């Protein structure tokens, strides 16, 4: 090929691309949660469209529950309103198995699939097909106020027990000053209080189902978990705990009203960030245990998936690959600082010196994520996967109904006995109806 020819071809190709860009721009509709990291992603829209002028982005940013209801209705009825959906490790395997999602095995090589943390990638893969790209990953851990801990004359071990947490919480509580030793989720919902309680119950040796799918709420381990939880929250929790979810507790901690808070590792960058009044007095520790070999930490990854009903799968893949790439991480680092990049998805991030020095919580986050084991979550064997959830379609309904009961037990409007009995009953009924036993 002569130079002339090449130049001509290049020019033609350029014209064609330009023509395509102006004539038929693809518009992607992206459904996402109103969490801080996603709002940052939305703010980066221009960086993406500059690099991909033929793709325009439309954002649908909704609160988590509304979002879940919207995208589930849409995908299950094949509505086709979204090209990219933000979903979690609970949905991905179920939807993937239904054939509702597009496989992402063919993302470009630069995307570097092998860099994804194995614990996270495992949760997003069904029969060897990767069905979603992780945007950020999280486990849970203890975040605590170093100053209050010192005042109480205690020292937080790197791997505390629940007993220690309860004692420390009581010692840190000062109701006059509106300081509450322990903040934890109480708001009903399978992704709210049941995430916390299921993970906690795992460390107490409890489980949702035995190997024959029989509900286990009539077992002593659940009672023990619930008694410990309500007892501790009663002694040292904030008022209104049964209405507090992740966001409410985050606000409390940022205002300096919590001594300890056990929740998602992603919260670490918020409690040490600019909005926090206690940013330089926060320490981190692993989620507590009771010595049975399982810790009370979960595993979750908000991920970007492409519904099979999309009419622009290629453009959607381009976007997903971009938003979950190292390149995106660097863009955020440049604009907002390394501490604010989406955490918990890539090994390389935890080998990046700049990140490690900017994020004091990095080490603990990685340890927490790596210690969670969704395929083997409990002390006794179970037929399901998932640490803080049971990866079956029926779980959302059951989890939320049980969550209502436990939230009522925390509020004191029902007894622990009644809450457990109702939970057992409704879980058994629902499983029976769904044909498990």
């Amino acid at each position: 090929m002569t130079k002339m020819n090449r130049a001509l071809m290049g020019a033609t190709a350029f014209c064609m691309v330009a023509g395509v860009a102006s004539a038929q721009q693809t518009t992607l509709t992206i459904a996402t949660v109103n969490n801080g990291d996603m709002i940052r992603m939305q703010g980066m829209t221009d960086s993406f469209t500059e690099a991909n002028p033929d793709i325009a982005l439309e954002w649908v940013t909704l609160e988590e529950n509304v979002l879940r209801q919207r995208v589930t209705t849409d995908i299950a009825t094949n509505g086709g309103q979204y090209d990219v959906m933000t979903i979690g490790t609970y949905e991905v395997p179920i939807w993937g198995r239904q054939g509702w999602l597009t496989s992402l095995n063919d993302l470009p090589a630069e995307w570097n699939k092998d860099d994804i943390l194995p614990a996270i990638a495992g949760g997003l893969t069904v029969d060897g097909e990767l069905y979603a790209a992780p945007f950020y990953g999280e486990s849970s851990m203890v975040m605590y106020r170093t100053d209050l801990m010192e005042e109480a004359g205690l020292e937080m071990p790197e791997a505390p027990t629940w007993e220690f947490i309860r004692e420390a919480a009581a010692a840190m509580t000062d109701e006059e000053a509106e300081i509450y030793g322990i903040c934890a989720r109480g708001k009903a919902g399978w992704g709210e209080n049941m995430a916390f309680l299921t993970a906690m119950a795992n460390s107490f040796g409890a489980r949702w189902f035995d190997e024959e799918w029989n509900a286990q709420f009539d077992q002593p381990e659940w009672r023990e978990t619930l008694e410990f939880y309500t007892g501790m929250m009663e002694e040292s929790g904030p008022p209104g705990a049964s209405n507090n979810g992740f966001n409410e507790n985050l606000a409390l901690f940022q205002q300096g009203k919590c001594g300890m808070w056990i929740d998602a590792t992603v919260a670490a960058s918020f409690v040490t960030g600019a909005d926090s009044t206690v940013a330089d007095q926060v320490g981190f520790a692993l989620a507590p245990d009771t010595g049975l070999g399982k810790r009370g930490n979960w595993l979750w990854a908000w991920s970007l998936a492409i519904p099979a009903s999309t009419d622009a799968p290629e453009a959607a893949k381009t976007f997903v690959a971009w938003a979950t790439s190292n390149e995106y991480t660097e863009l955020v680092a440049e604009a907002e600082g390394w501490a604010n990049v989406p955490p918990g998805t890539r090994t390389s991030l935890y080998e990046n010196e700049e990140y490690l020095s900017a994020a004091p919580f990095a080490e603990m986050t990685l340890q927490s994520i790596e210690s969670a084991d969704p395929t083997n979550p409990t002390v006794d064997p179970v037929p399901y996967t998932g640490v803080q959830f049971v990866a079956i379609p029926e779980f959302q309904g059951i989890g939320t109904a049980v969550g209502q009961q436990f939230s009522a037990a925390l509020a004191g409007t029902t007894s622990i006995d009644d809450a457990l009995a109702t939970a057992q009953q409704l879980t058994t009924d629902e499983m029976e109806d769904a044909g498990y036993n």
Partner: protein
Amino acid sequence: MATAHSRAAARIMIAPATVLLLGWMLIPLCMTLYYSFQRYRLLTPDNRGWVGFRNYERFLTNPAFQDALINTLLLVLGVLVITVVLGVLLAILLDQPMFGQGIVRILVIAPFFVMPTVSALVWKNMFMNPVNGLFAYAFEAVGLQPYDFLSQAPLASIIGIVAWQWLPFATLILLTAIQSLNSEQMEAAEMDGAGPIQRFIYITLPHLGRAITVVILIQTIFLLSIFAEILVTTNGGPGTASTNLTYLVYAESLLSFDVGEGSAGGVVAIILANIVAIFLMRMIGKNLDA
């Protein structure tokens, strides 16, 4: 005055509205009925099949159903009582001569324009929150423990929020009615030595009867389907303490994604709503025909 010609014209004119509403009601209703006899979970669509009355059985024997029924009644009645009683008192007050009547009326009418979602969010976070809410500050300022409204008295709190939204509506209708009251009659009664309370009972109240009926009818229509306020504030909890029928149907269809049971719940709710409707229409019929 009705000639055959105008009758026919009337039929034609009434047709679009009737046909549209009939379609709007019947098509989804038939589909809901159809689904209500099926096992249909959105997340396991392959497992679909006929199950007879099983969905109904499950919905009706669900312990939450009874709570939801009672809560729905309490919610509707609670809000009605509050808005009618306060509405009458407020209307009488606003009818008195005063300075800046127009501005006061603007202040009173305002909550009616606020989106239910917004008002629930504002009340929940900025007022009822036991740590950062204004009520918590107020309680502490007078030396009391902050009260945790949404956990300790969830239904009452929701009734309060909804009543705040609907009080302006009741007040305005009642005010318009009071303003049409014949003042000569009042004066005559006063001359005859009737005290203010007697005048209220024997003259004002009977005069307001019709307006009160209208307030009850319109509000009941909207109160039966209260949903956003519950979703935003308590999610129906703790337990089922603030779950009403609408919310229960929502929980079945969109939290559990069980379309079958949700549809059965929808049919039950439709039947109950119609019972209320018939009851209301009887009442209205008597009062409005006059």
